[in-house]
């Protein structure tokens, strides 16, 4: 027995030593498809320990004692693996010449970027991060204000909205989690621009298209602003804010299993105290007062699935009087009460076989109660003969329901096809009361149905195309349209790429010009965009040229009081321009800055324009310089924004027996604005602290530069008055804190 075991053991030893003696040698070289050697490639004999790593010249060599049929694999991330089956016998020797091709991956593939700006933490081609949106001086945490420092936008101060490439504010539409948002801005006030409603902190991604946007979106002639809300928060946290403008507070709670979160915020703003210190041009009867609340919940439905709800409520009112331009010694009185609510529910899910689904619904209700009139010098309401129309009430109710479903299928690599449907229902119900208390009530109801399809085609890592189309049917106008879209991107180098975009875009005539539908049709725009983009971690350089052609713009005819009413679609126009964007985070130490410049040449004949001309909301030259510097020793961030705009034209147009004529025209002075803001973070990174505090100081138009947005005229064209900001400068001070509300955060913070 013992003998047998010894024999067996020695036999095993002999066999293994023999095995060790007969070795196969495998060597070779690995290159890419341009015959450049690839170092660091893992060469493996599958299911064995044997293999090698290529050296700096792409060479490898190793020996193995394995025998039989084996597979040699050469692999590395970002490359398509190479496999070859070998037959290894005693002392076989192989020499390989392996070529590895690049895999088309999100990390290396070209991205179609013509016409778009992106703010994101993740995307390589993003020009801004969400933090940038919040810390741009002059923006005061308004998403759209930060976007106004990018090329393609206008510095329009007398009304809200994004005026893009010669388009009106109504030509830009906003989408949250895929669905359309109505009343994205607070209700209009005469000659004062209002803010966008939503806090920038609820968004993790912003895509701002200034032209040639995707077939997934429609009903915007010029621009789409696509906002994506945050997913689950990193941790539970509470927040508090104090400023002379008001107070705010909120709570976000993340479940222990990190699959569910809920939260709410409330904000009360009252400008009474501020207006006592910063004198306004208007004499306020009721200083603006806002109650704003929001609530959310989000939960994971699977590893890739997520349901999100965001709800928003706002109630606000204001009232002021100012010297009337129509009758000297009298005053115009304006009052506004607004109630708005918005609900958005979305569900995204990764399905099997490369399918993805995005569903979203939103419902909004908006009610404005506007009260206009005249007062005498002792602030008593009066009705003046010939100016009776200035005494009015307008109650506008709007109900909006939007739904959208998008399905996506990965075809091969990054190539994908997506398609879907969209439904927009709007019910606008303005109720006008004249000075005799006569009511004029009417309703405009629209059902807009859309079908769209789009495909991303990645031919190589360097060449990609996006081709799509959109079909829309309007029940209100009983018209349909088909809008083709296409874009192409080509990678020129590791950091640079060129892209082209083309598309047709349709939009309903604005309801504010509608009294009846008549024979109206969609307005139409055609975009052509060419872009060069170079990005790396420190520098973004972007150069874009575009041409945009407008057809079927709305022309207005007869006027009720001072209102213009849509008559036909005979309007037209075009816009062309050059835009430059440069961002540099490195050259000057600790200074991050960007420069934008836009040249715009546009003319249009729409509404009551007597001829095709440069509209009053479009300046030829626009520029911005944004600077950010964080001084770590002082725990303080300094931000400065300078904006410039060349003079804009202004017109006084009157209707002479059905023919529109100029009573006056001119051009404003150039516009300059310097804004400054400071963020002081006293507890920044302090050890053991479970609080995050930021003190904000911001000053708009810090040098008090005189700014003129345009001119307004008396009803009889006798008097003319500059439209200027309500106050030369504006100062804001606020203290915002967030703090952990459970132990997890204490642990995290004490470990920072």
């Amino acid at each position, binding site marked *: 027995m013992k003998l047998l075991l010894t024999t067996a053991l020695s036999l095993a030893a002999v066999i293994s030593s023999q095995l060790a003696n007969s070795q196969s040698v495998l060597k070779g070289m690995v290159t890419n498809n341009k015959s450049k050697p690839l170092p*660091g490639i*893992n060469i493996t004999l599958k*299911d064995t320990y044997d293999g090698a790593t290529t050296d700096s010249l792409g060479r490898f060599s190793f020996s193995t004692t394995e025998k039989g049929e084996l597979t040699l694999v050469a692999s590395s*991330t970002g490359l398509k693996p190479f496999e070859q089956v070998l037959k290894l016998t005693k002392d076989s020797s192989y020499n390989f010449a392996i070529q590895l091709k690049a895999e088309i991956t999100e990390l290396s593939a070209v991205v179609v970027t013509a016409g778009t700006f992106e703010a994101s*933490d993740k995307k390589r081609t993003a020009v801004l*991060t969400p933090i940038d949106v919040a810390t741009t001086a002059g923006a005061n945490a308004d998403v759209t204000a930060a976007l106004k420092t990018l090329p393609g936008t206008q510095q329009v101060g007398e009304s809200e909205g994004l005026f893009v490439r010669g388009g009106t504010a109504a030509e830009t539409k906003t989408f949250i989690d895929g669905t359309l948002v109505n009343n994205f801005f607070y209700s209009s006030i005469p000659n004062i621009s209002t803010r966008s409603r939503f806090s920038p902190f609820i968004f993790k991604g912003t895509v701002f298209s200034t032209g040639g946007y995707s077939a997934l979106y429609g009903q915007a002639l010029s621009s789409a602003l696509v906002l994506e809300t945050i997913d689950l928060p990193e941790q539970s946290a509470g927040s508090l804010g104090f400023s002379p403008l008001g107070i705010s507070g909120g709570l976000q709670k993340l479940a222990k299993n990190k699959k569910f979160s809920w939260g709410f915020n409330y904000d009360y703003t009252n400008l009474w105290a501020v207006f006592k210190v910063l004198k306004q041009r208007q004499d306020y009867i009721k200083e603006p007062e806002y109650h704003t609340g929001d609530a959310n919940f989000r939960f994971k439905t699977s590893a890739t699935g997520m349901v999100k709800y965001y709800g928003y409520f706002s109630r606000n009112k204001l009232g002021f009087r100012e010297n009337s331009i129509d009758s000297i010694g009298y005053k115009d009185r304006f009052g506004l009460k607004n109630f708005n609510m918005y609900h958005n529910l979305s569900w995204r899910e990764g399905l099997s076989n490369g399918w993805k689904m995005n569903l979203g619904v939103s419902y909004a209700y908006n009610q404005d109660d506007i009260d206009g009139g005249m007062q005498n010098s002792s602030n008593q309401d009066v009705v003046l003969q010939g100016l009776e129309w200035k005494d009015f009430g307008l109650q506008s109710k709007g109900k909006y329901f939007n739904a959208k479903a998008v399905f996506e299928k990965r075809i091969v690599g990054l190539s994908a096809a997506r398609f879907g449907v969209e439904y927009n229902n709007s019910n606008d119900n303005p109720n006008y009361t004249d000075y005799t208390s006569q009511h004029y009530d009417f309703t405009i109801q629209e059902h807009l149905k859309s079908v769209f399809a789009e495909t991303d085609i990645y031919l190589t890592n360097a060449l990609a195309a996006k081709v799509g189309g959109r079909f829309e049917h309007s029940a209100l106008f009983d018209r349909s349209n088909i809008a083709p879209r296409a874009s192409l991107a080509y990678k020129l180098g590791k950091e640079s790429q060129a892209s082209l975009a083309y598309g047709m875009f349709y939009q309903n005539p604005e309801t504010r010009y509608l009294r009846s539908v008549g024979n109206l049709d969609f307005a139409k725009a055609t975009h052509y965009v060419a872009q060069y983009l170079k990005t790396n971690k420190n520098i973004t350089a972007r150069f874009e040229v575009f041409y945009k052609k407008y057809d079927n713009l709305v022309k207005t005819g007869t006027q009720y009081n001072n209102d213009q009413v849509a008559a036909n679609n005979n309007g037209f126009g075009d816009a062309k321009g050059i835009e430059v964007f440069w961002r540099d985070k490195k050259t000057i130490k600790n200074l991050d800055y960007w420069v934008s410049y836009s040249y715009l040449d546009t003319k249009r004949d729409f509404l009551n324009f007597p001829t095709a001309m440069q509209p009053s909301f479009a300046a030829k030259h626009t520029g911005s310089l944004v600077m950010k510097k964080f001084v*770590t020793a002082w725990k303080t961030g300094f931000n400065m924004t300078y904006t410039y705009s060349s003079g804009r034209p202004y017109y006084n147009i009157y209707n002479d027996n059905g023919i529109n004529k100029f009573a006056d025209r001119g051009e404003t002075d150039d516009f300059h604005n310097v804004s400054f803001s400071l963020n002081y973070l006293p507890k920044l990174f302090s050890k053991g602290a479970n609080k995050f505090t930021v003190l904000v100081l911001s000053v708009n138009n810090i040098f008090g530069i005189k700014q003129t947005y345009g001119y307004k005229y008396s009803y009889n064209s006798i008097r003319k008055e500059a439209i200027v900001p309500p106050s030369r400068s504006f100062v804001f001070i606020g203290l915002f804190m967030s703090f952990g509300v459970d132990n997890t955060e204490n*642990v995290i913070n004490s*470990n920072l």
Partner: protein
Amino acid sequence: MKRIFLSAALALSFIAVNAQSDRYKSAMEKLIATLDTTKTVDGYTELGNSFQRVAEAEKTQWLPYYYAALATVSAANNMFVTGQTDKIDPIVDKAAPLIAKAEELQKDNSEIFILKKMYNTAKMMADPMSRYMELSPVAAEALATAKKLNPENPRVPLLEGQDLFFTPEQFGGDKNEAKKKFEEALKKFEAFKPADNLAPHWGKDQATYFISQIK
């Protein structure tokens, strides 16, 4: 006779199995010894590949995945130390699937959470300005979990010390506090007995090195 044959066959198969695991052990021992002395990116890349081959051949062992990820993260850290932050991402991204595999085979292991902490910190270092907010808490939580799973793991105070050491003072860094952590780590290294000679045992040299760097 029949019984003798059976015993012989059994004995032979026992030898074969033993030879197999001996092969695993000796291969791993050799690689771990190399890892202990490796200092270059190329060296770490090569080791990462070698560990990965062992991992994929064995399929059921978590340690080769662990070491493959450790070597990969070390290569990324080396890129950070030499200021080539733009090269961190493509390297460190290779570690993520390796860590996931290791965790699949070995749940709730303090050492794997140490690795997760190192991975997230390396990832953050590629672009701290924009990734700090997101990744710093993730890294801190991984380290906290590692501590919870094994409070005696000497690599926990070692990494805590490194965070304090590398963070500038105005951001909450503190060299004296760091030194205390490194000393705590050294004490724990004295007491720490790895499960066997393949189990993670690295870090003592680093603790000694960092202490020598603090006056």
